[in-house]
């Protein structure tokens, strides 16, 4: 089992209903009797969502309260590509989507970064190439993964230029064929209609013939364009055909008005026909490929044989398929293969810089500078500069049988043997703090461990100026840290009501814990995950005084400078001390 480093998680007040108790929850009764009715249970399923390490918490100076990632409101300040670090204006976002449109791609196989590499063209063999080709040495580029060596040539994709890969890739279909442009599509249509004559049936036959020969299959864009064209023509000429649906009137799928309504969703109103002709009649359905009819290819036998012949590892995982950006240049999704060999390079998803607001007073409590390359913050009110940090250290006191073995963090705790932990509270603010601790006598849960906070009330001196810290650097021998340390640890005695050690802006106190035995009685369920972790809930209340108006210049002209204002803050936290030895 992995060793456990001691940790402190703090509960955000936004989960107030949980911290004020769950009186109706009988599944995990808290064992505190009497004074502590509403002990916070760190094992309650809800607790997972309200406990955070100190670093993750922010602090609102106006509400004087802790704020967590769950309750703050975020606002995106900047979008940028995590690979080329270029900022993307939010206007581009609407048109280009949320991916980098430069040359930043991830490997579809292993998500490693792809880099543009020039391909050394092999010496052209004269038998295959025409003389004019051989005369011009043409260098092409491919995307290569520097981690797994995947290359875009594996899906038949090469590029003419080393830059603007995104735009080039958008025009390329797997295998290297270029995606049809709108103009080409038009020409192809014309060609098709010439070849197949005016009759729709003939056109369909032509397409069917093409498909069976493996030639031009209709991609998504072409199908949509064909269908749109057909519908437009039907709207323009609604009397062309009447196939019996007119009785349904405007409600039918084939009525022009419902079609134009649907099309409005996609095209933004350009298709909307001023309802003049809408009552005239129903439209007919598309009958041929050039009208947007796509026949499903239900014969998947070739795909199935391919699956039979290939390895499991040749097939793409659902994560890989999901990370593929939509590709309109490809054939219809029906019957699309799920092989690795069809995956395309994945353009990087953009990342954001975000500022954060207090959910209650809407003041900004964190605001990064907008520029991508800078790491500075305009506003950064982190909880760590307002509430004391708590660090945990195991304390090994000499027993009656001589000195104890040195404590190693991550050691398992022996059941039913008292063990001492040193909690060090460090005061980050420039006022002295009065700290009051409360902890239930036994930890909640199936295996109650006994907890005694030896000194539940103490003061911590103010965090003096940063210059003191700097001076201490040069003069570390006489630092205040070691001044009070009269001897080694073994000479200290654990005394109730006394602090263990005190420094410039910190105080250490001792907590005695008797870990529970994890022996299961008959009929008890097996140990749940992490049920052997000894976690103690602790209620921390801090009080301090501030100069009235000192940090609040707008509090009015009649304020009294000498008058001090009392502040207090209280919250639950959880101390994870270690794992209890089993068996």
């Amino acid at each position: 089992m992995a060793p456990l480093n001691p940790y402190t998680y703090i509960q955000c007040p936004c989960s107030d209903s949980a911290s004020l108790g769950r009186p109706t929850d009988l599944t995990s009764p808290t064992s505190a009797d009497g004074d502590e009715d509403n002990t916070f249970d760190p094992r309650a399923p809800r607790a997972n969502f309200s406990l955070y390490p100190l670093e993750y918490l922010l602090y609102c100076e106006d509400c004087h309260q802790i704020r967590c990632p769950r309750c703050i409101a975020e606002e995106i300040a900047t979008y940028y590509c995590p690979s080329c670090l270029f900022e993307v204006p939010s206007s581009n976002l609407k048109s280009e989507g949320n991916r980098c449109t430069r040359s930043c791609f991830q490997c579809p196989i292993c998500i490693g970064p792809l880099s543009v590499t020039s391909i050394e063209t092999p010496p052209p063999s004269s038998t295959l190439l025409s003389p004019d080709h051989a005369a011009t040495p043409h260098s092409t580029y491919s995307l290569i993964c520097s981690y797994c060596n995947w290359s875009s040539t594996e899906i038949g994709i090469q590029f003419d230029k080393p830059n603007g890969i995104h735009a080039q890739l958008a025009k390329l279909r797997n295998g290297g064929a270029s995606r049809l442009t709108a103009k080409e599509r038009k020409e192809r249509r014309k060609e098709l209609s010439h070849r197949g004559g005016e009759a729709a049936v003939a056109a369909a036959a032509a397409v069917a013939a093409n498909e069976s020969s493996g030639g031009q299959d209709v991609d998504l864009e072409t199908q949509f364009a064909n269908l749109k064209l057909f519908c437009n023509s039907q709207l323009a000429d609604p009397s062309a055909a009447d196939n019996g649906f007119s009785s349904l009137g405007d409600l039918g799928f084939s009525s022009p008005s419902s079609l134009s309504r649907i099309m409005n969703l996609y095209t933004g109103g350009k298709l909307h026909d001023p309802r003049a002709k809408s009552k005239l009649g129903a439209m007919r359905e598309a009958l041929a490929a050039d009208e947007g009819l796509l026949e499903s290819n239900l014969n998947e036998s070739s795909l199935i044989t391919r699956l039979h012949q290939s390895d499991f590892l040749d097939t793409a995982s659902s994560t890989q398929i999901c990370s593929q950006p939509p590709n309109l240049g490809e054939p219809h999704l029906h019957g699309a293969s799920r092989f690795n060999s069809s995956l395309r390079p994945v353009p990087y998803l953009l990342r954001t810089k975000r500022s954060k607001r207090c959910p209650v007073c809407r003041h900004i409590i964190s605001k990064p500078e907008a520029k991508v390359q800078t790491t500075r913050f305009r506003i950064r009110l982190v909880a760590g500069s307002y509430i004391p940090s708590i660090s945990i250290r195991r304390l090994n006191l000499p027993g009656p049988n001589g000195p104890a073995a040195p404590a190693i963090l991550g050691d398992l705790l022996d059941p039913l043997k008292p063990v001492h932990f040193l909690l060090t509270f460090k005061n980050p603010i420039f006022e002295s703090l009065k700290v009051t601790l409360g902890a239930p006598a036994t930890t909640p849960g199936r295996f109650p461990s006994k907890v005694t906070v030896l000194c539940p009330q103490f003061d911590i001196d103010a965090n003096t100026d940063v210059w003191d810290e700097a001076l201490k650097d040069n003069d570390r021998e006489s630092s205040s840290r070691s001044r009070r340390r009269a001897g080694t640890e073994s000479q200290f005695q654990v005394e109730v009501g006394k602090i263990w050690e005190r420094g410039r802006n910190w105080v250490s106190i001792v907590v005695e814990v008797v870990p529970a035995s994890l022996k299961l009685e008959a009929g008890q369920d097996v140990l749940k995950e992490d049920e052997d972790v000894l976690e103690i809930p602790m209620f921390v209340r801090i009080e301090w005084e501030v100069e009235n108006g000192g940090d609040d210049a707008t509090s009015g002209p009649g304020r009294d400078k000498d008058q001090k204002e009392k502040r207090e803050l209280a919250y639950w936290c959880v101390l994870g001390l270690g794992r209890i030895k089993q068996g």
Partner: protein
Amino acid sequence: MSRRPPRGEYIETDTGNKVARKATLVGTQNIMLGGKTVIQPEVMIRGDLIRSIQSSSSSSSSATPNNTAVAIGRYCFLSRASCLRPPGRLYKGAFTYMPLRIGDHVFVGPSSVIQAASIGNHVHIGARVVVGEFAIIKDYVRVLDETVIPPNMVIPSFSIVAGQPARVIGEVPEGGHEAFELRELYKTVGNNPPPAAA
């Protein structure tokens, strides 16, 4: 961390660098240390892998070619058996190494291999990490143990990365910036380290 090394294990320089006698620094004249940097035993820095092709812009100043192979800022900590190696590649048909630049407050965990092009300020690299050639790690980045960062990968600021190959698995929270400071860690090593902090 409070293991007390035998006397004289480190050489302390005028600028406050603490270099273990058992560290291997090859081509020391090409290694720049900003000061207050700790180099633990068995660390290897390949200062001998210098650029063999000078960039055309600096060719005019033929008197002092820039031969820096590895540049390290202030308050860096190179843990035991880590290795810094300048990245190399083909440039205009010839193979050349390029300098490896490391900012301030960069922690490199034990047995990690660094071949990045640049590492910013306040970066924590865990144990047994491989940073591939020409990778760029920006500021305030945490790389978890046993991560493999592929060559050429760019890791933006405030990323937490892990995995093989590396992927961004999280964001460094606002309150986590101070944890990258290495001043305190610097004080705990050397020939006469003070007793471990409480």
